[in-house]
């Protein structure tokens, strides 16, 4: 095991009724890096994220986070105790609440029932929310209902929620779907800004975006890791070109 790894997947697999969606994946992500996972539709990217965040139970293999075995812990403890935050593919937000309320819900702090009973909504650290609103460029929409926002803005709200969680590891599943080229670029800059003290894993389709943010790129195909390396190296890899870039 790599000592410096923040997240370490060891030979991870899962079957859905005999279909192996993730097949013997081993992967190691260093603290502070931005890792991009690319691959054709159905390659198993989202399923891999489901395994890391315990949305799906792992059948084979183990997952370590900061050297601790987190295999098959409950999803809420993965988020609360270990600090792994996740943005789902396609925005998954609280549409009937305002932008500010979405962030307040995600804001780090006590998740206990009684503590929250005795805490009023307005006592939440406004400063933290203000900072996040600036980062996701939605300061002007803080009191809008999230359901009234555009698709791209909803994506940003969800990125903001993950930031509010103060996660050590942030996993973003296709954060730029439905965004204009301009919004996609801004999202790339957001991700670059949030890495460093945090570690980011992001799955993506847009190769310009990958070029913008990537340090290490992992290419998945049919549940397996096909290649891993820097952007230039990956984009020159003939097999990657064959299964993915040419498609």
């Amino acid at each position, binding site marked *: 095991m790599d000592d410096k790894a923040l997240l370490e997947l060891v030979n991870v697999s899962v079957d859905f009724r005999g279909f192996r969606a993730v097949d013997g994946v081993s992967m190691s992500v260093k603290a502070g890096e931005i890792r991009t996972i690319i691959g054709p539709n159905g390659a198993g990217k989202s399923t891999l994220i489901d395994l890391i965040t315990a949305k799906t139970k792992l059948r084979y293999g183990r997952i370590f986070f900061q050297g601790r075995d987190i295999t098959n812990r409950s999803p*809420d403890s993965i988020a609360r105790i270990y600090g792994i935050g*996740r943005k789902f593919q396609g925005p998954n937000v609280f549409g009937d609440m305002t932008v500010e309320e979405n962030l307040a819900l995600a804001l780090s702090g006590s*998740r206990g*029932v009684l503590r929250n009973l005795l805490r009023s*909504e307005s006592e939440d650290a406004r400063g933290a929310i203000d900072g996040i609103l600036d980062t996701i460029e939605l300061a002007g*929409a803080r009191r*809008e209902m999230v359901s*009234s926002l555009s698709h791209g*803005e909803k994506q940003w709200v969800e990125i903001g929620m993950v930031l509010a969680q103060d996660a050590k590891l942030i996993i973003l599943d296709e954060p730029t779907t439905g965004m204009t080229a301009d919004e996609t670029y801004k999202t790339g800059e957001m991700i670059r800004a949030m890495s460093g003290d945090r570690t980011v894993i992001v799955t993506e389709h847009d190769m310009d975006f990958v070029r913008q943010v990537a340090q290490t790129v992992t290419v998945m195909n049919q549940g397996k890791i096909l290649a891993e390396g820097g952007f230039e190296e990956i984009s020159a890899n003939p097999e990657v070109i064959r299964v993915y870039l040419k498609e």
Partner: protein
Amino acid sequence: MGGIKKARLIFTRRAGINALILAFVALYPVAAGAYRTDVLAKTLALVILALSVDLLWGYTGILSLGQAVPFGLGAYIAAISDNVSRGIPDYMVTYGITQLPAAFMPLTVPAVGVALAVAVPAALSYLIGRLLLSGRVRGVFVSLITMAVANVATVYINNAQKFTGGSNGIGDITRPAPFGHALSIYGNYYFVMAAAVLAYAFCYYIGSSRLGRVLGAIRANENRAVFIGYRVSDYKVFIYVVSAALAAIAGMLYARTTGMVSPAVTGIRLSTLAVIWVAVGGRGNLTGAVAGCLALNGMERFAAGFLGDAWELAVGAILLLIVFFMPDGVIGAVLRFRPLRPAARAKGGGAGG
């Protein structure tokens, strides 16, 4: 329209409706006379039951079809406590009990009776909640199981005749005696009204706390709440128990207002009715629960006289109409109604996008 501006409008309207209801209820005895005042006191106890349904269903999205179980248990424990505090009740004597069973001794102390009338249903709900709400059982199955529990409770109370009076129930229950001697009809009315106001304030507080926000998040998108780190089952069990305690208080007040209890108070029918009051009034805003309960019970008084059993059909028809045309209930529709600027309703209107 901004979320905050809309929230303020809803707040003002709700405060207005609440003030009207409160004024009506507070002044009702002046015009109504003793009998009708006593009838409305009974309905005010049911208002607390409706509020408990709203905590669970409106706030959190858990639809229990067995909310009469904690209500009925509260009512029965209050009834037994009241009776045994004055010796061995007649119905027990009928079944050959000459000495009070040890388990009933604590109930002879009125204060202990009150505490147990709340604590026992709350504890039972904790056990049921832990089994039912910890993730394995979902959606409609939760409702079905709570309904089965209500059925079991009714059967059990029917069969445990020695202690519950069986299908005859328990009568001869005195009104509450918070100051040492039993209250008059009017005193009891205002006592129950004060309890209902406190229950409303309590539910309102929960709704405005950060806990209330988390409950709303669980209702709207449970999965998302899990992945930002909330242990959802803790929240569900907590509100399930709090709601049961509130229902038990309602049951206790109901028993001591009506002076008698029968197995129906734990049953599926009352459980379902309580859900209908909230659905018709509108869930999630408390005022809907209060108004729905008062209006449907009031209409029942009025209509049952000439409709007879057809009243039940009428309730079904009202429910269907509301569900189809006002999914947020009557109060929900009133709170959200916007006569001006229909264009603002268009999607994305006024948003920053």
